[in-house]
């Protein structure tokens, strides 16, 4: 397997769980993303930071869909930041963007600091 691993670092920013993603998001990302999601309990909003992600493929999108399905069941709002223009477009054409909030760059935590 030459699939690259994904690193998902979690930190708390106010009441939000920030998941800093580094690497590629493909089918192999399921475990790391799931573990990061589990770092906070029901109701805690999740902010996925894609700033360190270089590649997302269709199996990676399936992983994100799986995460969104869990979040919906857990009533945890999910938002995203750090997406490149290309992956913002992909989130739009797949309608992922209808189910997570894509923060404009200026609204991203830490953008003003």
């Amino acid at each position, binding site marked *: *397997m030459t699939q690259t691993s994904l690193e998902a670092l979690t930190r708390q920013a106010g009441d939000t769980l920030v998941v800093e993603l580094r690497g590629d998001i493909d089918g192999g990302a399921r475990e790391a993303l799931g573990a990061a999601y589990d770092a906070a309990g029901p109701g805690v909003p999740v902010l996925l930071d894609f700033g360190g992600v270089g590649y997302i493929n269709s199996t990676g999108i399936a992983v994100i869909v799986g995460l969104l399905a869990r979040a919906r069941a857990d009533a945890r709002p999910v938002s995203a930041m750090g997406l490149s223009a290309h992956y913002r477009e992909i989130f739009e054409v797949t309608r992922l963007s209808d189910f997570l909030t894509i923060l404009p760059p200026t609204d991203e935590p830490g953008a003003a600091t």
Partner: protein
Amino acid sequence: MVWRRSEPAVPAPVAVEPQPQAPLAAEQPFEIAPNDPLVAYLQAAPGAVDLARLDLDSPAIQEMLAAGVTLAIPLIANGELVGILNVGPRLSDQDFSADDRRLLEQLASHAAPAVRVGQLVREQQVEIQARGRMEQELAVARLIQQNFLPKELPDLPGWQLAALYRPARAVGGDFYDVIELPGGRFGLVIGDVTDKGVPAAMVMAATRSVLRASAARLHEPGAVLARVNDSVCPDIPENMFVTCFYAVLDPASGVLRYANAGHNVPLLHTPTGPAELRATGMPLGLMPGMSYEEKETVIDVGTTVLLYSDGLVEAHDARREMYGSARTASVLAGAPASSQSVIDELIAGLDRFADPGAEQEDDITLLVLRRGDGTLADFKLQSVPGNEREALSRVAAAVDGLALSPERIERLKTATAEATMNAMEHGNRYDPDLYVSIAVRSDGRRVSVSIVDHGGDRDIPTTPAPDIEEKLAGRQSPRGWGLFLIKSMVDAMHQESDGSRHTVVLEMTLEGGSDDADKP
């Protein structure tokens, strides 16, 4: 005293300087023509010669006698007359005695080798000075040439351009040029100024500049050459003229319009055989008011066009046989893979042919245009998870330079990665012994990526159109995005199976290739 040897083959005059001790009338050296009978006489004379006693029809003797010379003693070194020791009358007015003569002859025999050494040193100094001047002139000519040849050739998608300029030591007046013209067209120029060195280089520079200016204003190559001819005629040095082939290429259609001012006829190699680009016209600079025949052809895919100067075809081998256009055409017929390899093979062939001991006789200039089949990349990948990343980076490298915006390149990369994953997974079932073949092609209007796997014997899997709400509700698999993404990312996608192989073709229109180029 004679300062210069008289060379029988080269009739140079012999300079004579008066003997300073003798009361000679002449104070400046005078010259003896090499064919003066005195020269031959002194060459064979055993010793001192009384000039007044010689019965020769010699202007030199008359001149020497008039200058007061009475006795001439030849200066012989290595059997050659290198000078004359001229002696005036004795102060006592008496004749020279036998002892006087012996003394003078001894003096002459000692002086002759020293005179010869002096002459050689002087000859060498003159030669070094002349060579220095010549080298300096050649350096100037080379500098002019280098400054007026293109620094780089334009990139024409779907076409290959390569050029070579190999100057002879004496630097001829060859030139070539590729001119960007309005409407995406390109002007191709090759020319040769008769003569060599600085004058030829200057005429070349002037012709090239006039041609560039005319090409920007006039569309038709024949009209361009006529304008250039009229411009260069008044100022071109006598006995100098310029041969020049000028063509205008429309890379999109392959149409090539051309005219020729007496230059070597360019050669073509087409998929159906050899051809030539013949058009009649007088060289530039001979007489004003000339018109130039204009012709048109279409350069098809797989055709190579060779523009060359006579330095190539007129190169000689050790038996003085010329390289010729037949040998040149046979290199083209060998269908070298690229424009650069046409040049490499021509030069390698020429170097094998030419007399290895001889200097290159003339400048060699080659300009090669080839219309490729549009293949930008062609590679295979093992069916191993993750290899789609290799596919997308190689496709991205292949389309670099095409008229595709960075956003559209990203879309093509994603579509390529998804189609490659499908090919590895569904077509080849991730069998590492099976490969996915990927080819990137462009015809100048669109770029296509074909992805071929070994699943042609199976039905193409059909998945329902992804519906994210169904997926989130668990009624549809979270997967199944691949084909949807591919179709969303490219302008067109089609697939076909031939029983063993399954091919997916992704297409993106290049900017300027169609009105709907911005379609997502």
